[in-house]
């Protein structure tokens, strides 16, 4: 009966992941083959993106046509996967040996594939291109415990914090001075809850791993073998959030919030602050004009001075039959010119060296959208990807459940984090 299949996405992911590992045990280690990328660039390359076709068909059709023209004898077959279920799709393909030649992955998706020997080591096969990319972006594709780099860095994303000036004003807070550190954020959040009689929450969500990172918690030990977010700093952060939750400064549905639901709460004006990206401005204008008039924009709250960034990459399958062409195409898509063109299509940022110094990312023209873009580009130069690559979906669920237990008062923050760290370490070892 197929209709039950949407019941347990988390369980699916776990099962799919274990199936992937089982099937990969016998796979030959094709990752370190350094000469595999040499040879004539020809043949049909299958290129898989993650939910980009609906909006950017024209851009990619152009890139593909250009590549086919530059290398006669090549053909690129582009497939695009929808937003949901991408990890499951990848692990099913990996298990059955049907991975496309060039695959759009984020580092956490690339990790299990690299570990199973299914991702080509770009560092060995195409190390000569290293100098073209931002150092941080290149290094974010390194995997702990594996030598090598398993994807070409592609687009980066980061975003500011949006806040509702009207709600700030009503709570007696200065709308011109939004909180920029966590201590200020906590204090303002409590004021907001008190003044609004618990009706308006400052934040929509419980803390995620990125929040731990921005707060300055050490997430893993230096070798990436053990999680450490139960250190005193982590406990301190969770204790603060617990106070907020008890005072009504976190949304009542914070424990189950995801980015989408948090965004909705912010647009309903029942939450005063929410992270977002430059594109959200358009959404506010269209969907919540009342909010748009009162929108405030500030840097993401952090204690470390470094913003969080999300990284996408292009992985080449180690089993690809057309490795030279696949590597050439992955590099072609992620080179400076094409990344720059893509960044002009949508509010993402190129990971190639020097691109962020382009006037497009440094010159303001007075509009809000440009201001957000310029500020984000500036913060990207020092930004880090706080989420450890080894933190699987399953581990994120473990952390979320532990945080929920602590916020509800069922466990002390220390106990909750201790158990989450123990469970994540166990998963890390058995994974």
């Amino acid at each position, binding site marked *: *009966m197929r209709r039950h299949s*949407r019941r347990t996405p988390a*369980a699916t992911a776990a*099962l799919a992941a274990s199936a992937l590992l089982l099937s990969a045990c016998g796979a030959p280690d094709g990752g370190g083959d350094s000469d595999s990328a040499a040879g004539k660039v020809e043949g049909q390359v299958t290129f898989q993106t993650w939910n980009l076709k609906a909006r950017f068909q024209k851009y990619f059709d152009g890139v593909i046509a250009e590549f086919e023209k530059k290398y006669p004898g090549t053909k690129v077959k582009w497939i695009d996967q929808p937003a949901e279920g991408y990890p499951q799709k990848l692990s099913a393909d990996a*298990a059955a040996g049907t991975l496309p030649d060039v695959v759009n992955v984020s580092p956490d998706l690339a990790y299990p594939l690299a570990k199973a020997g299914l991702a080509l080591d770009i560092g060995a096969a195409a190390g000569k291109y290293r100098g073209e990319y931002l150092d941080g972006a290149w290094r974010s594709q390194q995997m702990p415990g594996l030598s090598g780099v398993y994807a070409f860095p592609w687009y980066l994303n980061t975003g500011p914090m949006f806040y509702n000036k009207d709600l700030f004003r009503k709570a007696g807070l200065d709308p011109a001075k939004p909180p920029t550190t966590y201590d200020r954020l906590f204090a303002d959040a409590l004021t907001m809850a008190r003044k609004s009689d618990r009706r308006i929450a400052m934040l929509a969500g419980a803390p995620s791993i990125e929040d731990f990172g921005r707060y300055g918690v050490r997430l893993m030990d230096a070798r990436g073998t053990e999680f450490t977010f139960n250190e005193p700093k982590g406990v301190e952060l969770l204790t603060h959030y617990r106070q907020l939750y008890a005072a009504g400064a976190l949304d009542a549905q914070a424990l189950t919030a995801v980015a989408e639901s948090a965004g909705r709460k912010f647009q309903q004006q029942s939450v005063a602050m929410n992270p977002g990206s430059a594109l959200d401005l358009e959404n506010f204008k269209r*969907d919540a004009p009342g909010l748009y008039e009162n929108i405030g924009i500030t840097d993401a709250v952090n204690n470390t001075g470094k913003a969080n960034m999300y990284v996408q990459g292009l992985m080449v399958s180690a089993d690809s039959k057309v490795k030279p062409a696949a590597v050439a195409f992955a590099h072609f898509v992620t080179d400076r010119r094409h990344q720059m063109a893509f960044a002009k299509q949508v*509010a993402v940022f190129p990971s190639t060296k020097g691109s962020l110094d382009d006037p497009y990312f440094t010159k303001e023209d007075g509009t809000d959208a440009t201001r957000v873009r310029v500020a984000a580009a500036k913060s990207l130069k020092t930004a880090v990807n706080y989420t450890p690559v080894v933190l699987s979906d399953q581990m994120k669920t473990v952390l979320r459940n532990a945080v929920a237990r602590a916020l509800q008062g069922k466990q002390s923050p220390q106990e909750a984090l201790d158990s989450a760290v123990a469970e994540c370490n166990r998963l890390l070892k058995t994974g």
Partner: protein
Amino acid sequence: MTGAAGRRRRAAGWSLAARYLLLLAVLALTVGPFLWQLSTSLKGPGEDIYRFPPSLLPHHPTLANYAEVARVIPVWDFALNSLKVAAANVLTNCAGAALAGYALARLRFRGRRVAVVVFIMAMLVPVESIMIAQFMTLRQLQLHNTLLGVVLPGCIGAMNVLLMRNAFAALPYEVEEAAFVDGASAWQRFVRIALPSVKGTLAVVAVFAFMGAWDDFLWPLIVLNDQSKFTLTVGLNYLHGTFADNQRLVAAGSVIAVLPLIVLFAGLQRYFFRGVGEGAVKG
């Protein structure tokens, strides 16, 4: 009219009112979210769709969102694929489950009880745990990236076989014995006597099979690669943008996805409610 009767009538009136109130509350709970989707899908740009309390009547009603859905994704191709898969699923499930159910309920053969137990056990295996194995089997059969591959694993559901078995088992034996005496073969008894008596359960199986195939997301996602072969649930996912969501498009897409289910249910509801009680009361 005596006082006692009046009081009784008044008490009955109150309980009737309470009952209707409760029904209305449940109706609001179940239909409300759908109405919100419907109204969101009809709202023009610039309208505040997140206002509280929500306004269900669009101020600038427009069908532009539906046109936009069709522009962003080939929604009618997706719907056609879904329809093919769902129709095939309904046919195979109705035919297969009826045949298997009749055999389990009426035919005497060695291992009949074991077969029933196996069917029940099969329902206990979560689909997710065997999905990868199923996919690898399909790949061996060269059926991945085909609609046939989407239909195959769910083409005869164990649950449907059990439903049909119970419906057949609930029919009075005497009727078939009479047909047997008149010289009807097993096949004739199945087609002429048994099948017409379980139309209700067949309708239930049809609706379940249609809904199961129409709503399924993960399996078609894993099997299919080419966008031209995507089913509606997989394709509609493209409306969730990577960088920004347009709630109006998502709402319009989900209305398109739900419509056939409503039509199907409305068409079959006469049989449907008969079918739900069929196995339980008769006998």
